[in-house]
């Protein structure tokens, strides 16, 4: 049986809920077994905004952990250009290189991957 390709979709901003961190943990684990990619949609893109300072919140800045994805062989990292524009962001504001796709291409990603896990 062919190896299944997993797409992890991050949709929530960081620190307000555990979703983002859970999703990141899941990608790191999944990448040990199969080909994985990450897609940031809507407020999910805020997870990788540069210069997060979580000291006053007494929580860990897990955004830097995203930098480890490359070492785990996760090289396909996507976001939606429209969602960046809506938030006055560009890929330069992000902590890691991300491919910004037009809306029409997002649906094709869903077709390309065998399993879609949303966080």
């Amino acid at each position, binding site marked *: 049986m062919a190896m299944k390709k997993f797409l992890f979709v991050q949709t929530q901003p960081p620190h307000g809920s555990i979703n983002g961190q859970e999703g990141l943990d899941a990608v790191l684990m999944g990448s040990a077994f199969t080909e994985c990619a990450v897609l940031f949609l809507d407020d999910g893109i805020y997870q990788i905004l540069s210069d997060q300072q979580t000291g006053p919140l007494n929580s860990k800045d897990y955004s830097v952990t995203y930098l480890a994805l490359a070492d785990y062989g996760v090289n396909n990292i996507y976001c939606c250009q429209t969602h960046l524009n809506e938030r006055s962001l560009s890929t330069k504001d992000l902590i890691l290189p991300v491919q910004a796709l037009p*809306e029409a291409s997002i649906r094709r990603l*869903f*077709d390309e991957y065998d*399993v*879609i896990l*949303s966080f």
Partner: protein
Amino acid sequence: MLLHTINQSPFSNFSLKSCEKFSAVGDAVVFLENGVYALVHPNLHLLIQADLNVFALQADILARGLQHSCPDTVKIISYPQFVELCVQYPKQKAW
């Protein structure tokens, strides 16, 4: 073909909008849990116009008293029918 699931009220997030934007003809959508409030959302018709097959879980509709607000364009399904849909559409996207 994709099975989209919406389990939160579209009055409090973008689930309905995102689902419509990132769907393709022939996809199916299932409203469950608080997602059934989509039945009374003004943007519901967008999914119908996009040629998606739209379903809603009966138990969740009844529990919320929405049974008199179901448009004919949405098919009401039981839990076993939901399972059948999952078999028919092996790939899912939860919004």
